[in-house]
């Protein structure tokens, strides 16, 4: 066990990690300059996970957030989330998610299922009712399907299109990214809700507000916000790494 961890930390890995953290921060700022509605601040972490292994990925994530804290204290309490992202990217890399090409129909399926469940999730949340005792009940699925049939069909088509045009042959990387995003949303919510009262001072606060207004408590609203923005964000990050590794010279990959 310890030997395999030690084997990940070669000189090359140790050199790669600072560069990966710098990539995280440089791209994170670039995204803000291009005014894109995502974070994409874990591309370097995913890259280390894919190239060097899960433990190196986890260390990169944790250190990235702590170092970022030197100018933005907000990132520090979330260091464990970044570590888990790196860890999962490493496991994805071991399974070959960044090398294998997936059939295109799989990408379409993944996209469709993802947008479909996202829609279901948002609709279930916004249609939830809270009675006087504070007990929240969610609407029955069959009722939702019949009431919003058109929206669900649109969601499936849009998701399929996203899968076809965006994921293309990177379906395996995409699905690992989705899973990572869901995990990240779940484990970051308690910290976001408890330490920061559910706000980050950024655009996603509006989402928290919307879920809050529909009757969720803070923890549930933050988790719901994360479930909407995180999976998509992490899917994009994993896709970028997949693209990068495909465009690397073969000589580099051989090492």
């Amino acid at each position, binding site marked *: 066990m310890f030997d395999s961890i030690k084997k990940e930390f070669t000189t090359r890995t140790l050199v*790669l990690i600072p*560069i990966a953290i710098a990539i995280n921060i440089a791209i994170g700022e670039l995204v803000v300059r291009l005014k894109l509605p995502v974070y994409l601040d874990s591309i370097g972490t995913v890259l280390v996970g894919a190239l060097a292994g899960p433990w190196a990925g986890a260390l990169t994530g944790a250190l990235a957030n702590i*170092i970022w804290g030197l100018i933005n204290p907000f990132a520090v309490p979330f260091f464990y989330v970044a570590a888990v992202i790196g860890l999962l990217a490493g496991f994805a890399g071991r399974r070959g998610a960044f090398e294998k090409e997936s059939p295109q129909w799989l990408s379409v399926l993944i996209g469709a299922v993802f947008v479909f469940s996202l829609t279901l999730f948002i609709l279930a949340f916004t249609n939830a009712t809270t009675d006087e005792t504070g007990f929240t009940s969610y609407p029955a699925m069959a009722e939702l399907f019949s009431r919003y049939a058109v929206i669900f069909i649109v969601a499936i088509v849009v998701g399929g299109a996203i899968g076809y045009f965006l994921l293309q042959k990177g379906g395996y990387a995409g699905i690992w990214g989705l899973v990572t995003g869901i995990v990240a949303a779940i484990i970051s919510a308690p910290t976001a809700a408890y330490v920061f*009262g559910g706000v980050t001072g950024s655009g996603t606060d509006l989402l928290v507000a919307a879920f809050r207004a529909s009757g969720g408590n803070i923890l549930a609203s933050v988790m719901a916000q994360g479930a909407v923005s995180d999976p998509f964000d992490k899917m994009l990050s994993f896709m970028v790494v997949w693209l990068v590794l495909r465009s690397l010279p073969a000589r580099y990959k051989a090492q």
Partner: protein
Amino acid sequence: MNSFSMYAARKSGLHNLHPLTKSTLALCLAIAGLVLPGNWTGYFLVLCIVFPLAFWGKIFTRFSRSLWNVSLPLAISLFLIQSIFWGESEILFTIGPIAFKEEGARFALINMGRILLVMSDFILFAMSTRPDTLMISLKQAGAPSGIAYIIVTTLQIIPRFQRKASTILDSQRSRGLETEGNILVRIRAFIPIILPLVIGSLIEVEERSIAIEARGFNSNKKETSLIEIPDTNTQSLLRRIFIIISMLGIIARIAWQLLI
């Protein structure tokens, strides 16, 4: 040197403290703010401990400006979201159709204390501690040298990477890449900018690892340091006390939560 940190060089007692003393104190304060009961503990600790320490470190102006910049957007966001969307209690005041409720506003105020404490605590630490001395002291306390290398190198190369990203952005623009316009245009601009950045840096990894191995990075001999970090027995005692208080705080909080 253009470095990635908030460090503000001053000659003060706070700056002269051992970096580990400051980091354990920062940890202890943050944990205290999170585990102690009472609604106003956060504000109390900021006023009675963090602010005087900032005065002592002669960084009060810079410290408070930076704290203000970081927490103001959070405070506004927190207040709006909690007071508009939460609680059915009395209405404080209304602007048009929007009603601000007391319960939410109170909740926001209580939470802001905790946020302020965590933020001010980190800013104080980052402003009064030179990153390289922190690393050397961590190494002397027995942390693996790989970790120290990673942190010091990262701090040095981040500014370079930020410049590199700007250069690539500008050069792709001069080749005719559109980076402004609707969201689709901006998304399409993203890939031609980050691919050169990431691939270029991966190629650099090879050069760097050869360079540091040639300088004895993997040597097992004990290293010596150019910078001496003064330490006292009182400080090492203080560090132990801070760590014990933090651990007791967490245990007490968990026990309390389980019992009640």
